């Protein structure tokens, strides 16, 4: 008993004896390879400025939950945070982020180096800069090059549809290709090769991918005055295409897929195409991790794909804003951004995509630049997170055959309009 009490006392004393944290910059980032790339370069930053940097990386799924308490507090733990583009309006409305324009002007940091579409989605709110884009995740169409180049496939496609088989430039072409490549290869009556892989799981998963189906049909979420446009014939067709793709051209179970499961189908060599984040192209095309390795290509989604990105931000609860800004200027300087790009980072500055050294190391860089420059912005307003949940639910219901696409479009329109009214964007 005495030993137990002594042990307990020691444990308690030890627990309370954890040393107080020294004043260093603490950064909260996602678990992506780019985080590791920056971590490796931190000794240089320390040598140049004398500032210590601690990077904490957690999965994206937990990021919003972890960030909110930190941002509410008068002084949080983190000096720099990474914010997803669709939280920036929410965080700005709550007054959690520090504007960066004055600091950029004071120190001569040129914010026009970023791709305009990325800056528009991720960097600025109502013309004021709150974030510096760090990591783009524009979506592209990843396809099997070897199937497109196969003469037998080309002949069969031409015979069936009367058009050439090639890298799809129009949405209609892609629709035909999805149908064409869905087949039963072993004659057992079950489809075992699929034209595409959808990810219709509710929430983020379905919204990210289905947006491309809407854009491909010429639909948009809202007009220039923020009036929702989810019940237009183009939007209904987009939802219908997504539902068809999920139920007819994608593996069984796609109603519950998210990014990981969907990419796994491609890496097992069981699908012709997937609309996914451009940074997953490397995984799909790597022979060590994918049966489609060396046979994949990437192209912009016909009609323009979804534009998404994360950005660096300095929260108002940052304990050391000046040191945080010093870090941002360093990590987003052209030299450091280029070195990150050469290691395979997701680029956000215009010049990087056509830099000769980067193109030599990453031949797909110009295509990625096109993807990023032509991407369409997702609605970014105070209630984007709720919008993703509510409209995502409707699209999932349509994709799993539980709701008619037109009804799902109407319900999505109403839900979106309600949230916009709540945000004061429309009457």
């Amino acid at each position: 008993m005495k030993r137990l009490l002594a042990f307990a006392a020691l444990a308690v004393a030890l627990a309370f004896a954890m040393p107080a944290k020294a004043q260093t910059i603490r950064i909260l980032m996602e678990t992506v390879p780019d985080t590791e790339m920056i971590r490796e370069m931190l000794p240089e930053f320390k040598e140049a400025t004398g500032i210590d940097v601690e990077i904490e990386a957690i999965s994206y799924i937990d990021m919003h939950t972890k960030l909110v308490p930190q941002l509410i507090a008068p002084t949080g733990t983190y000096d720099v945070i990474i914010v997803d583009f669709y939280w920036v309006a929410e965080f700005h409305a709550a007054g959690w982020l520090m504007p960066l324009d004055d600091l950029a002007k004071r120190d001569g940091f040129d914010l026009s180096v970023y791709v305009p579409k990325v800056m528009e989605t991720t960097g600025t709110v109502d013309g004021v800069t709150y974030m510096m884009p760090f990591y783009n995740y524009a979506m592209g169409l990843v396809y099997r090059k070897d199937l497109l180049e196969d003469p037998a496939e080309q002949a069969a496609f031409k015979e069936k549809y009367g058009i050439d088989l090639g890298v799809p430039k129009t949405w209609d072409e892609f629709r035909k290709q999805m149908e064409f490549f869905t087949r039963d290869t072993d004659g057992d009556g079950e489809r075992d090769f699929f034209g595409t892989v959808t990810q219709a799981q509710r929430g983020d998963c379905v919204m990210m991918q289905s947006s491309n189906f809407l854009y491909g049909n010429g639909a948009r979420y809202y007009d220039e005055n923020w009036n929702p446009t989810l019940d237009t014939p183009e939007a209904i067709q987009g939802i219908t295409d997504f539902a068809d793709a999920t139920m007819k051209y994608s593996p069984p179970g796609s109603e519950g897929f998210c990014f990981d499961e969907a990419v796994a189908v491609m890496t097992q060599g069981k699908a012709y195409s997937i609309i996914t984040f451009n940074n997953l192209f490397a995984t799909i095309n790597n022979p060590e991790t994918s049966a489609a390795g060396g046979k994949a290509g990437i192209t912009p989604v016909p009609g323009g794909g979804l534009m998404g990105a994360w950005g660096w931000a300095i929260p108002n609860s940052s304990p050391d804003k000046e040191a945080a800004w010093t870090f941002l200027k360093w990590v987003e300087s052209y030299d450091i951004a280029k070195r990150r790009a050469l290691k395979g980072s997701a680029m956000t500055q215009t010049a990087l995509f056509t830099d000769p050294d980067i193109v030599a190391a990453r031949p797909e860089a110009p295509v990625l630049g096109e993807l990023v420059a032509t991407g369409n912005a997702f609605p970014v307003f105070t209630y984007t997170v709720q919008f993703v949940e509510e409209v995502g639910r409707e699209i999932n219901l349509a994709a799993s055959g539980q709701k008619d696409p037109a009804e799902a479009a109407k319900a999505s329109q109403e839900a979106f309009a309600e949230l916009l009214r709540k945000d004061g964007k429309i009457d």
Partner: protein
Amino acid sequence: MRRGRLGGLAAHGVLVVFCAIIALPLLWMLRVALTDKLTAYKLPPEWGSPDLDNFVAIFVEAQFHWYFLNSAVVAIGSTVIALPLAAMMAYAFARYDTGGATLRLFVLSSQMMPPVIVVLPMFAVFLGLHLIDTWAGLILAHLSLSLPFLAWLLVAFFQGDVRILEQAARVDGATRMQAFLRVTLPVTAPGLLAAGLLAFIISWNDFLFALILSGKPTYTLPMALSAFQTQRGVEIAVMAAGAIVAILPVFVLLPFMRRYLIKGLSLGALK
């Protein structure tokens, strides 16, 4: 005789089915931990060439031993503090009806609140007390989870036959505290061990409090495992290896605790 045998076989058959339902996911996880990501997702399943690379990776690259230490310190710390406090609280409820039904319900009501409601105010208070990113902070947070639950669980143990033994000790001249420490606790030790194991598991498995209240130096195993969900996909094979390592302590403890666990969980039923 034959009916007895058939009955026995049928009973065992049902038990095998239920065991399979519980054991198969764990065995699948072990299989994934011994392969790589590409093989892990293949359907129909392939075995590939099993190796221990993922287990090496989680310790060498992911520094799992530090998260293991954090989880161990927090779980043992919260259990060691919760048990005596919960035992004393339960004893007071059982013997003296302290606070009556009102206090008991009040203690129970704290368990009815979803932890997500509690964690934000807790963060604000801990921030002011410099308890964020400390073992002490996490231990205190986990105490709020386990203490009420353990107190409720232990009340039944103290209401059992042990009362008679206590009275005998008091008649022999023991003080209340002496009777409690020297008679009640040893007799109800199986129950206390069972409760302690539950408190350990509650702390070991907690994710929400660890997410909000800890920082990188104090990450526990659930936080470390969640980090394998990257934006380049879930690192399923490494994550499976990490999960196997994370559940290992309970597997190791269980054979030693099994006798006490069964005895302890049923002891409270005897009044």
